[in-house]
């Protein structure tokens, strides 16, 4: 389904993503971990085409999405939803309008400029908000909501796109532990119920272990680990983060739970 081959991104003299290759054969929930500056965000941004790759290819169902331009590129972006650390909603517009922005690529520019969305789209937007448990805020301005609620609006916008893939760039990095769990549970549920592929950059190991079917570890732009969460031992984690023996997962854990708790993901291996 997804084939990444020799993907490289250079910013001047810096190599953000260095010759990355991997294959995903079915829609799974994929976690990417690594310290800041490891190239996780750059990879997601290249996949959504917010950033252009330097070399390499990224094929989705056989089509190299890095070669798309103009309308074809925007068409791909509409099938590849992105969730950002800072939510990236339009703060002065109401929640439903923000969710309806997910359909911008399918609707005529003129109609959307006057906020003329079809009635069935509006109903669908409200249903999605209901599914994510924030329908009571539908008419409020996005800026009036808390961080966790805004991130769920962003997920609703992504679902409104009816995408093949959902990319989540540090979706819980600016949320408190409780909201982080709500948002991650929502992403997992979308994957389980709709069968959509989810690729999430995560900054905490326990989140990756608990929610993902497969984990890719990046360090200095290179893929240094690719395996199941079970294979992600503390020793491997030290390698990914370039840490020494003093490194302890619990020190950075943000979850409210017993660390022996079972993962929420399905028991089938990736």
């Amino acid at each position, binding site marked *: 389904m997804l084939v990444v081959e020799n993907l490289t991104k250079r910013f001047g003299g810096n190599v953000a993503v260095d010759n990355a290759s991997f294959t995903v054969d079915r829609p799974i929930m994929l976690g990417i971990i690594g310290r800041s500056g490891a190239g996780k965000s750059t990879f997601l941004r290249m996949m959504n085409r917010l950033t252009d790759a330097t070399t390499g290819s990224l094929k989705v169902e056989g089509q190299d999405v890095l070669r798309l331009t103009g309308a074809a*590129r925007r*068409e791909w972006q509409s099938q590849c*939803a992105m969730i*950002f650390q800072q939510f*990236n909603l*339009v703060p002065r517009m109401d929640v439903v309008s923000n969710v309806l922005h997910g359909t911008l690529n399918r609707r005529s520019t003129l109609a*959307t400029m006057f906020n003329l969305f079809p009635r069935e789209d509006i109903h669908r937007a409200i249903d999605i908000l209901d599914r994510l448990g924030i329908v009571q805020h539908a008419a409020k301005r996005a800026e009036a909501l808390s961080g966790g609620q805004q991130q769920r609006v962003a997920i609703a916008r992504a679902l409104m796109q009816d995408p093949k893939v959902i990319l989540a760039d540090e979706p819980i990095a600016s949320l408190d532990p409780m909201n982080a769990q709500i948002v991650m549970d929502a992403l997992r549920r979308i994957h389980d119920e709709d069968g959509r592929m989810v690729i999430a950059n995560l900054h905490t190991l326990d989140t990756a272990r608990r929610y993902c079917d497969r984990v890719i570890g990046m360090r200095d732009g290179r893929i240094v680990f690719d395996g199941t969460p079970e294979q992600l031992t503390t020793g491997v984690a030290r390698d990914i983060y370039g840490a020494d023996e003093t490194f302890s997962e619990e020190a950075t854990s943000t979850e409210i739970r017993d660390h022996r708790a079972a993962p929420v993901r399905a028991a089938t291996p990736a």
Partner: protein
Amino acid sequence: MALSPSPTSDPHGHYLALVQRKRLYGGLTLAIFVLMMVSGFMLADSRNAGGFWSGLPQIFDFPADVLADTATKLHLLPEHLVRYFPALLETINIAAASTLIGAALALILSLLATRGLALWPRAIPVFRRIMDIMRAVPEIVIALVLIFVLGGGPVPAMIAIAFHTTGALGKLFSEVNENADLKPVEGLTSVGASWLQRMWLGVVPQVSPNYFSYALLRFEINIRASAILGFVGAGGIGYELKNAMSWGKGRFDEAAAIFILLFLTIVVFDQLSSHVRGRLIHKGGH
């Protein structure tokens, strides 16, 4: 230790030396300024047809005439006010239409000229220069050309003011755009929105209070501009004022009525726009 006297060794002497140097520079600047003023004035005075000093005592003759004329015909003033009110409306109409058209064009030009938002980033300097040119040409020059081509009337005045307004507002709008948060724009890019959709739904909601505030300020300026353009044949209250003034004594009461109308209009719109702008900024700043 250091070549110059160290400030710590003699703080009094060091500071006094600094003050003296500042005073010297200040005095020199003032002397140059006074010299240039005097020489420029002498030159202008010698070239003037009438001469400044001989004309100076007559400077209050015109207001005195207007007042004297009006005082004797005070009972006619309300009638004049009513008679010239439609001309005032025409002037305000010219200003409103040109502000609207100018602001709409300025919106498009400013978005095309802002780094990070522009549709064609390489063409940013082109659109900036276009706005510079539009801003640099005074309204009256464009109006004179257009009146020559299209004939007198409100339409050439409207086009002339709209042209200048586009350049002036475009520059201000573009500065507002620079401060816009790019996160919503990036969010809309990620769903595959077109450039127009990104600008209209991602940028305009953020900047519209500031846009509106600048446009109101420009509307005030444009009322004055459209009154002035009446003098060169663009219709409206300026045209009536020119006639009333140039026909000499006997019609100065009408000129007084027009002055009162203009003054009241400016005051009303000034108060109105500062009130609305105050509310917008107050609301937007939470």
